[in-house]
């Protein structure tokens, strides 16, 4: 079966942490255009703290995702704390008891995460949020799996769709969150959350491909 051992999955979270740390300045810069310029700071604070807590722990994917989600939820606050916090907590929960993560498990994980975001944040596609990245990305992954493509190809198609979704936020008017206050003036800039979400999906895809290659 096409998959990887959940026990080895901590590298996915390690990859996420590195991605956020490397893009801290970039994400804040994007948020500065139409938000309050702290998205990279907020994210970096949460992800770095989470990594500190788990780096010496012997965790699998479920445990690492749970620690990440828990840290975001309990130490970040604002809107991103609960949104990404639930995102990763729900991912962790969907993996409960699973030893092997195959495309179906990965899809279920993404779906749970997206469900949490929808339930908490109530943003829709087109509102200029991370949902504009997430929704098409999951759609692409599911479509690829349904049409019989491999886990690895489905991941590639997910990342491509995420990127397109992220770029689509440039021309959108923000309907939700801090930049919604700007109305028309929020057009002509990327949404910071959409960018961070894209970077994370891309990072996860890379980590999974790596693990699949090792199997």
């Amino acid at each position, binding site marked *: 079966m096409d998959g990887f051992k959940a026990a080895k999955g901590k590298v996915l979270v390690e990859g996420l942490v590195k991605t956020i740390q490397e893009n801290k300045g970039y994400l804040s810069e994007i948020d500065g255009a139409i938000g*309050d*310029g702290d998205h990279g700071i907020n994210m970096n604070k949460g992800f770095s703290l989470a990594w500190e807590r788990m780096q010496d722990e012997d965790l699998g994917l479920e445990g690492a995702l749970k620690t990440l989600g828990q840290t975001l*939820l*309990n*130490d*970040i*606050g*604002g*809107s991103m*704390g*609960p*949104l990404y*916090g*639930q995102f990763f907590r729900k991912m962790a929960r969907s993996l409960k008891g699973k030893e092997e993560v195959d495309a179906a498990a990965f899809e279920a994980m993404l779906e749970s995460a997206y469900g949490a975001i929808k339930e*908490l*944040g109530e943003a829709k596609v087109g509102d200029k949020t991370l949902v504009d990245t997430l929704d098409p990305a999951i759609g692409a992954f599911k479509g690829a799996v349904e049409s019989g493509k491999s886990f690895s190809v489905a991941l590639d198609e997910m990342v491509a769709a995420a990127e397109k979704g992220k770029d689509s936020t440039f021309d959108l008017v923000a309907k*939700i*969150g801090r930049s919604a*206050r700007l109305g028309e003036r929020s057009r002509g800039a990327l949404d910071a959350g959409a960018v961070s979400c894209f970077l994370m999906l891309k990072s996860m895809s890379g980590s999974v491909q790596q693990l699949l290659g090792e199997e």
Partner: protein
Amino acid sequence: MQRIINNPDNVVPDMVQGFIKAHPDFIQPTGHERVLKYAKAPIEGKVGIVTGGGSGHKPAFVGYVGKNLVDAVAVGEIFSSPTAGAFYQAIKEADAGKGVAVLYGNYAGDVMNVKMAMEDAEDDGIEVKTVLANDDVPSAPKGDEAKRRGVAGEVLMWKVGGAKAAAGGSLEEVIAAAQKAINNTRSVGIGLAPCTIPSVGKPNFSIEPGKMEFGIGHHGEPGVKITELKSADEMAQMSLETILPDLPFESGDEVVVLVSGLGATPVMEEYIFFNKVEELLGEKGISIYRPYVGDYFTSLDMMGITLTVMKVDDELKGLIDADCYSMGMKQMKI
């Protein structure tokens, strides 16, 4: 930035430490560094009252922790919601087995974090109910009240909910009273000069000298119009014209009025503004049951003023009259 601070990233912990030291008689720290509680909480047999929100609104939110008011509070970073973990801890600190009422303001981050905290608390078997303050009239049109922000009306919601809980009300009764308070409350704010988030270091919006922003939010959210700077009397009139028709408040009504400065407003000016509010309400046949004038809910160093009016019935009057003791509000019979 002419401010009395240390590292701008540490204003919240510095303030929290100072606050704990300044009020040892009724404030206690908890296991969570962003959660403070009333020294006597949880109080046996009493519904717990919890609130929380971003910092920079002193006395809100910590300033309302005390006797017959809030039992525990979750403290956020400047203008940013406290974490779900902080709300969860505050709920636990306030719970005495009779349930906990979380009375807070309608901001996206707070709503999400409270939702998460409630799930965790309910897993622990704590019954939690909430009231979401939405008293800020200019933040959404009539008919769309659910979208409105919570502002200084929250203070009256805490006063009423806190008194109801202290009087032995059940969780349902406390929630009903607090919800009635906020349903009967309308607010509006006017900004005369912007505020600066210390870690940002410069105002994140501007108000030109000679102008004012009518309908401004507590974080500098844009108002409904920018006008020439008016006299205090005209500001009072504009504010009432916005508030009164919205409920509506009508001749014969009795109301509680709360005038609050926004942080850099001299108290003298708050009384000058209130003087006209009282006169205009009188002309409309609306009588003030109890006035509050002072700094009750601020926005860092913003210069400006907010007006809050709550229509009261016998139940609300009794609850508003109850004694209370906190940094932000002290009341007793004399």
